[in-house]
């Protein structure tokens, strides 16, 4: 009876895993297959990957630049903002905390539309990479603020600050010596989330991009629509290679921050 139940569990889990993984594996394999219509018997090749690089290298570099830009903004704006919110007592600060998360609930398309309405006529900005970066910052900043706030709340920051102040530490030293080191697990988890989200972001970027400011996911959509299946699949493979290590690191950092919070 128990063996049967176990067997059933394994079967269901296996099916679910297969359902999720097989399309991804198929796609990855297609990316290195010489001719998709003749199957694997046509041989393996890296030509398609090279072709992707030739056509779309600029989108890879752009995505990386924008992800790093979003990360820099999240660190420079998000960490101090979380610090200020954690220290501020009162209802206004709690209301702002909720408000900060609002972009998460609004579809990326709506956010992009708002940006276009506001800045669309500002041509130099509209066609530059900065325009996309602004969208990504709006979208990713709440994740950093949330991650850091959670750690600050768990360590009772105001009490630690009072303790440091009683020992003679002026405000800037409390920030450097107490707030930042104790927030580190939250900052790390937030940073990985920001980079991963930025690299994979499509909705908002698709609305904001111009032919000269394509990011990797926008390029993917472009290749799916207009290239051979092998090229599109090879492109997906490139995306996997970039984003998988980030996802693994994110899981690890989130687990670490969780352990810290507990």
């Amino acid at each position: 009876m128990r063996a049967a139940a176990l067997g059933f569990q394994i079967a269901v889990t296996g099916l679910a895993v297969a359902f999720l993984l097989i399309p991804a594996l198929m796609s990855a394999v297609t990316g290195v297959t010489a001719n998709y219509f003749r199957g694997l018997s046509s041989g393996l090749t890296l030509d398609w990957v090279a072709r992707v690089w030739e056509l779309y290298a600029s989108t890879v570099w752009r995505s990386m630049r924008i992800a790093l830009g979003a990360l820099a903004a999240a660190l420079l704006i998000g960490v101090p903002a979380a610090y200020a919110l954690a220290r501020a007592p009162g209802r206004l600060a709690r209301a702002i905390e909720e408000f900060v998360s609002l972009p998460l609930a609004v579809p990326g398309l709506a956010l992009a539309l708002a940006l276009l309405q506001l800045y669309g006529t500002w041509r130099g900005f509209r066609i530059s990479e900065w325009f996309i970066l602004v969208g990504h910052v709006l979208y990713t900043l709440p994740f950093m603020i949330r991650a850091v706030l959670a750690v600050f709340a768990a360590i009772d920051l105001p009490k630690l600050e009072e303790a440091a102040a009683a020992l003679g530490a002026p405000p800037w030293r409390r920030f450097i010596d107490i707030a930042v080191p104790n927030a580190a697990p939250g900052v790390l988890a937030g940073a990985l989330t920001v980079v991963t989200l930025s690299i994979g972001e499509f909705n908002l970027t698709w609305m904001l991009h111009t032919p000269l400011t394509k990011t990797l996911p926008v390029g993917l959509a472009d290749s799916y629509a207009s290239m051979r299946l092998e090229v599109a699949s090879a492109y997906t493979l490139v995306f996997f290679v970039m984003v998988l290590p980030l996802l693994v690191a994110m899981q690890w950092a989130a687990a670490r921050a969780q352990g810290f919070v507990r």
Partner: protein
Amino acid sequence: MSGAAIALEGVARTFPGGAQAVRPCALVVPQGEILGLLGPSGCGKTTLLRLIAGLERPDPGGRVLFDGRDVTRLPVEARHVGMVFQSYALFPNMTVAGNVGYGLRVRGVRRAEIAARVEEVLALCDASALASRRVDQLSGGQRQRVALARAVAVRPRVLLLDEPLSALDAALRERLRDELATLLRRFAITAVFVTHDQAEALAIADRVAVMRAGRIVQADTPRALYAAPADAWVARFVGGAADLGGVVSDGSLLLPGGRLPAPGPHAPRARFLVRPGGLDLADRSEATLVGAVTRATFLGDRLRVEIDGAAEGALVVDAAPDAAAAPGARVGLRLRPGGLIVVPEAEEAP
């Protein structure tokens, strides 16, 4: 003796909502004294401590003085106080030694000197073995000692402790209470600690200030506080005295169940109270006061007997553990020497 004398002049604290946590009060703590701030929760004792520390600002007009110098406008980091928080607030990103040395590091003391001082202070607090531990590897009692070591490492002028024992479990608390009393005397520094536990206050402090509803109602040595409470509320709060009621006539206090000797002279509106240890069960033939037992609770070293009908309210008497006092029985009561507490009738603020 070292440390500064503390003086509070007209210090009050009104919170933004309008609640006055501390009413205008005056308090002097002489150099080297260990003062306990005792009161029920919400009486303003922690706020008063935070006003001394500089973590709160008094309402305009109030002054805080250390050794006669006005420090009212100085923020906490400039007051040079040592503070032990209720939750200890140890820095989780530093080792024990890092925590204890932090105050010196902030002051720019040289590394070798910090290490020497940290070692010295940890030894003083019997915590040398903990130096390289992480904060989350410490037990409650160890945390308390590290918090204390961190507070005294900078040689503060005043040591302030907010409920230093309340985060510990009951068994540990009693042991560490005596340990804390010893340590505070070893530091020989002016110290103020907050507690809601009268046994803690009486055991540790040189002098206890009893607070109620934002006011200091009495500041006295533990013995004086116990023997001569300022009013009926203090008598009830410290030592659990019960009101007898009754009227005085010819050097006796006449009560529903008889009378007790109460040699005068008394103020015209004096009130009489008695603690559980102030009365003794006695043979009814010798007793002048009689009541009925409503409950008897065996507590190991004594029998706690509740008695009705003797005084105007219920009385609690601590009798010998083998005393015969079954519920329903009528027992005689005798006053122990010094058992009667006489306080002036005062208006009792709500």
